């Protein structure tokens, strides 16, 4: 699946959820499923500033694709991180840069998250995009 197809899949997955309660339940479930970052990588250097929970990103390149790991101490944030990983981990930088990141809007997650929270997500995405630009 390419980056568009994965996002469409996520949009479809969220479209069957009835209300915010189900959405959050799903995010929590996704958050539970996210692999933890080992403590030695939860460093100051890997931390994203401006989020209301601690968020750590570990980024690298493997065989020409982005290797992305992420963690947070808050479960809902982990759920969002798991979606970002699904879309971007293992994807080629060019592909990431050439595509729109539309799933947050189309799932309604960006309006569901209040502005200051989507600011946090924006910081995370900006950090990833910065890395990606430097490694294309």
């Amino acid at each position, binding site marked *: 699946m390419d980056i568009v197809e994965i996002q469409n899949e996520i949009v479809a997955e969220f479209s069957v959820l009835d209300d*915010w*309660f189900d959405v*959050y*339940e799903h995010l*929590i479930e996704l958050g539970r499923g996210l692999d933890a970052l080992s403590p030695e990588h939860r460093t100051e250097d890997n931390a994203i500033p401006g989020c*209301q*929970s*601690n968020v750590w990103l570990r980024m690298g390149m493997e065989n020409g694709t982005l290797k992305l790991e992420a963690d947070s*101490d*808050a*479960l*809902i*944030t982990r759920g969002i991180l798991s979606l970002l990983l699904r879309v971007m981990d293992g994807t080629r930088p060019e592909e990431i840069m050439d595509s729109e990141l539309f799933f947050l809007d189309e799932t309604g997650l960006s309006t569901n998250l*209040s502005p200051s*929270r989507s600011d946090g997500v924006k910081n995370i995405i900006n950090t990833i995009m910065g890395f990606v630009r430097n490694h294309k």
Partner: protein
Amino acid sequence: MFDVERVREDFPILSSEVHGRPLVYFDNSATSQKPRCVIEAVTDLYTNHNSNIHRGVHELSGRCSAAYEDARSKVRGFINAPRDEEVIFTRGTTESINLVAQSFASAYLERGDEVIVTDMEHHSNIVPWQMACERSGASLRSMPFDDDGNLETHLLEEMLNPRTRMVAVSHVSNVLGTVNPVKDIASLAHEHDVPLLVDAAQSAPHMKVDVQDIDCDFLAFSGHKVHAETGIGVLYGKSEWLEDMPPYQGGGGMVGIVKMGGTTYAEPPLKFEAGTPNYVGAVSLSAALDYIASLGMENVAKHEAVLTEHMLESLAGFEGLTLYGNAPLRCPVFSFNLDGIHHYDAGQILDKMGIAVRTGTHCAEPLMDHYGITGNVRASLAMYNTVEEIDILAEGLRKVQGLFA
């Protein structure tokens, strides 16, 4: 008598909905909501009277100057200060404390001197002193508190020494709700000839604050936390200090005679009010204090005592919840964590149910360090909150627990 439903009608925002649910506003320690009379005072000023103050020769300027000085008198009465001249308008508590820390520090703080704060202070009553200490070579000491949220005031006696230049303490903790014994602290400090600054940001909305009864040397609070506009605050200072202290900011309004070769300064309070003051904010504060007076602070306090009791009952029996702070004398500020659930997760879900709480460190990291936590959920109440809203919160917390179970 205090009729909370009638009071709620005075606050337009309280009838709004958030995420399709009636707003339950429990973030009052961050900022308070405004009664219609305050909003209307601002509108009326801009619509009918607006003009800069400070020696304007024309009618509008005269009206606004008078309104500004009336507001100063109103504030004087609110905190029972002896003289209008002891009331300085600032942007808020933070600026008030910075004014003292900077102006006082440059006059009195020297290498080796000491300033005492407490471990439960808001950053706004820590960082200005750290900066003042750094500039002057003084050092900062901090009074600890116990797990119930009571200051260990018995330690103050031995912390005070001939090098102590200032004690700065919050009247009420913005996380634990503890009402600190500032009157005792004042008399202890004064025995050592040390002045006391009281951060009244969280007491002013909830109780009668009397600077003469406390006998503090400085006292700071924010308009936006007592139902006035954002951008206005107060510093009370005893005349003998204000007259001695050098000015804080320079500019229009705070001068006597200005020559390139040297400038003389006006008397307090003007000496400390450089530039166009927020006279509209001051007028809104005046309206807010009138509003509080019309209800009676003692009635507000009685109503809030009922809320406090209900909240404590509700949270005490709550399984899987840790409440921080359990002081005998407290204001309606409650902070807690649900076991195993991140405060930010909890806050997000509560928001979806229309319940506005604050999560995180509440600008009190040393306090969080005391409990070894990264933050918590804070429900802070005001005069317009109800017992029913507390029940909605409890219900909400149970839902949160269910979601994360």
